[in-house]
């Protein structure tokens, strides 16, 4: 087997050194009936690289790649062009095949990168401190809720109705076990978010208010107003962002009163990957709360010779040290995705991020104007960044499947996202990025027109 370096000669010599007759003898602690005396039956045996590659390629071709279709999906996962440099760097063996940097003397590459990453995230979000990444946006969202409950010693969590329903579901699932009380709501089909309705639900027992920005319908809530209301009741404002590119155009949540900003970093550097691995971002505006943060943190220090260096720090918060008293169950972060994000963000810089955001918005405006002209189609949003909601006189779940049969990936059905809400089944969330061409927009427009006629 190509991955196993031992030769039969080696194995014999090693067994001699150990004093065992064969490898099976090393498993003598396994009670007899439980030790398998040969390969598990019914499973194939080893295969050549050529054969495995062929098999996997065949499977891969049974998927329609986003690049091979007019593509308008978003809702928490965004298709952006990732420069070839990013993938080159994350494939460097020294990054790819390194472990968590617990031995900082020989892990400064990963550690300096994480320190840079934390700073980039903090600046993007307008926050004071960010951690070294979490699994994804949805788990980061839950960790924020848990942190706010810890800090406020309250248990009530007010979710915006326009929070990504899968994020809300993760929070609800986890809260079942922590006994947080989740106050959710249905999204309202209004041109601007129902900020007042949300504010009305905040009370003196509220630990945190969770708002998505832009929200699941592409609308932009007034964070400043919500922050004031939350803070007036002693609650923390948690802002969730699922599209980091948006913050090249929209004011940073940290500058608008958010206490904790979390989000999905996938849009920068990571790629679609059918939902994972993605990149949870987590940042806070009050640096005094850093010891309450979940997840790994990288900090600057000096070595014995006085040279600047970086280490994982404040790990006494973490479970492998604190065991049952840890701030979170999280252990692994999303290091390689953080690297991809950091490289892409370094290539962009402020100027590039702003230009990228502008291009996304420009094409989204073109698309929204074009689609609004179709008979029977209405654009819900007054404001949006790069995704917006169409209201259609049909169940968009079937519509999306029909479009796919024509080779068009036309958007995300609100009916799919909110299966319990019949009123939303005519909604179609359409996302446009710099990868969308005007030709793609025309293709979608024609197909919608045909489907609705």
């Amino acid at each position, binding site marked *: 087997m190509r991955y196993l370096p031992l030769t039969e000669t080696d194995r014999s010599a090693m067994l001699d050194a150990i004093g065992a007759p064969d490898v099976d003898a090393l498993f003598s602690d396994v009670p007899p009936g439980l030790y398998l005396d040969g390969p598990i039956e019914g499973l194939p045996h080893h*295969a050549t690289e050529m054969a495995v590659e062929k098999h996997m390629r065949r499977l891969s071709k*049974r998927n329609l790649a986003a690049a091979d279709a007019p593509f308008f999906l978003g809702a928490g996962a965004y298709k952006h062009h990732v420069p070839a440099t990013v993938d080159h760097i994350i494939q460097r063996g*020294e990054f790819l095949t390194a472990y968590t940097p617990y031995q900082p003397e020989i*892990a400064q590459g990963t550690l300096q990168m994480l320190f840079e990453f934390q700073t980039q995230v903090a600046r993007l979000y307008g926050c004071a401190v960010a951690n070294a990444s979490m*699994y994804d946006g949805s788990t980061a969202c839950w960790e924020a809720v848990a942190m706010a409950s810890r800090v406020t010693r309250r248990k009530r969590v007010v979710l915006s109705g326009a929070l990504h329903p899968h994020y809300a579901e993760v929070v609800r699932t986890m809260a079942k076990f*922590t006994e947080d009380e989740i106050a959710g709501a249905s999204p309202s089909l209004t041109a601007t978010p129902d900020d007042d309705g949300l504010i009305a639900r905040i009370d003196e027992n509220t630990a945190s208010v969770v708002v998505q920005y832009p929200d699941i319908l592409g609308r932009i809530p007034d964070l400043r107003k919500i922050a004031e209301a939350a803070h007036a009741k002693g609650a923390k404002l948690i802002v969730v962002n699922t599209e980091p590119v948006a913050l090249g155009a929209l*004011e940073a949540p940290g500058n608008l009163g958010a206490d904790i900003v979390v989000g999905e970093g996938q849009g920068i550097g990571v790629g679609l990957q059918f939902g994972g691995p993605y990149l949870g971002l987590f940042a806070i505006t009050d640096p005094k709360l850093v010891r309450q943060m979940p997840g790994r943190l990288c900090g600057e220090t000096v070595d014995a010779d006085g040279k600047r260096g970086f280490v994982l*720090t404040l790990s006494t918060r973490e479970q492998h040290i604190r065991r049952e008293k840890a701030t979170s169950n999280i252990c692994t972060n999303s290091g390689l*995705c953080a690297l991809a994000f950091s490289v892409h963000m370094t290539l962009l810089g402020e100027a590039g991020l702003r230009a990228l955001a502008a291009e996304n918005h420009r094409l989204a405006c073109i698309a929204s104007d074009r689609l609004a002209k179709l008979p029977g189609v209405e654009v819900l949003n007054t404001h949006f960044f790069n995704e917006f909601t169409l209201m259609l006189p049909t169940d968009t779940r079937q519509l999306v499947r029909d479009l796919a049969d024509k080779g068009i990936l036309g958007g995300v059905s609100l009916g799919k996202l909110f299966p319990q809400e019949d009123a939303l089944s005519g909604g179609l969330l359409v996302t446009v990025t710099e990868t969308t061409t005007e030709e793609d927009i025309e293709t979608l427009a024609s197909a919608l027109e045909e489907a609705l006629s």
Partner: protein
Amino acid sequence: LEEPLIFEIGTTETCGVDLPETQTDLPSRLGSFVRTDGTGLPGLSEPETVRHYTRLSRQNYAIDLGLFPLGSCTMKHNPRLNEKVARMPGFADVHPFQPVSTVQGALGVMNELAHWLIDLTGMHGVAMSPKAGAHGELCGILCIRAALEARGDARKVVLVPESAHGTNPATAAFAGYAVEDIPADKDGRVDLEALKARLGPDVAGVMITNPNTCGLFERDMKAISDAVHDAGGLVYCDGANFNAIMGRVRPGDLGVDAMHINLHKTFSTPHGGGGPGSGPVVLSEALSPFAPLPYTARTKDGVVHLVEEENADAFSEKHFDGAMQSFGRMTAFHGQMGMFTRALTYILSHGADGLRQAAGDAVLNANYLLRRLEDVLHAPFADAGPCMHEALFGDEGFGERLSTLDLAKGLIDEGFHPMTMYFPLVVHGAMLVEPTETESKAALDQFVTAMRSLAERAKAGDETLTTAPHHAPRARLDEAQAARKPRLVWSEEAS
């Protein structure tokens, strides 16, 4: 040459990507939400970016550079075929919300991998969505709690052996359980009688690691499971050490109800400097119905379905007589697809025979190290028989001012990554060494030479070890200062 930070060399005007020059004559739909502050994000041109990260990378140690004997972390070779496959556009460039007709290949990968995991472990079902090992642990415990609640049995205590990974008690605590220790016997194994004595109607279950963190197979595992089951509890097994037994022992045969599998350990998806991981959880018949959404299932017509909130109840009704009672959702999408493709590629490459052989070689390598080192290093359980895929040593006999840490840092100067230190807690100054099956005998012999020399220096009280490493990119770092005055982001003033 020291590599500066991007904030010290980049500028907010520099850009390493080209973007279309945007026409600005369209009205914006951003309203009053336009960002007014600068982000302060520094940019570098593409050549500078490549150089910055390439130079940084060279300050890392990695599997590609040498032996990485981190006990319980299973740092094995990461085949490049896996990377190639994961980048096929049909896997890498697919959106999680695409209609299922357009992602049959991706769902097929999940299903195919799921079946391998089930067959290799002798279990009944598998939850694919957990994002890492600890997330998988959590998933397993939540399944246990859901199952107990479904039968109206609100137990409050989870038993965890003292040698457990720190994540185990953290996970149990998160799920709302009180955690109690189970002691180890003198051989480093769970004390069966002590465990039995503690079982009762308040005990929801046990969390156990097998092979355990002393590198030993829990001989009494089946008896433990039977006792727990008899007392109405359930058995969680930490799968971190599955590499030692894959293809040779099935956890399902040992009575395990739930076990997470670290795809990034056992099945060789790369660690990437700290993730992403992936922690699918295999489940017994008792727990399978409670697995989180989404899950995939192939129906008789050959179509693979993705079951989410949207169709969960109907699907359960139609295909499982309504038995599926998912406890909820742990993540936004379906799990770590990128890891699934890599793990499946690895599994198909090995096949059932190759995985069995890999476990055998992993155990052979560890026993070889144990026997080549036991005369110079204290090996507390060496007399208890063979170890599994890791060999455990202690610091007994070291010079007064010398510690396990010093020996470990000395290894860096010999060109190796240190082993796991001070874990498990049951051994003083523990050194847990896991070579894995992808190390050659030549590499092991080099490691033995280095370790013997270091052991002798440690016993002789060679104090140059206390300042090791001397040939690394950095000398020992001041971790206390980092924690006392945390500097977690760069700022112009501070530097």
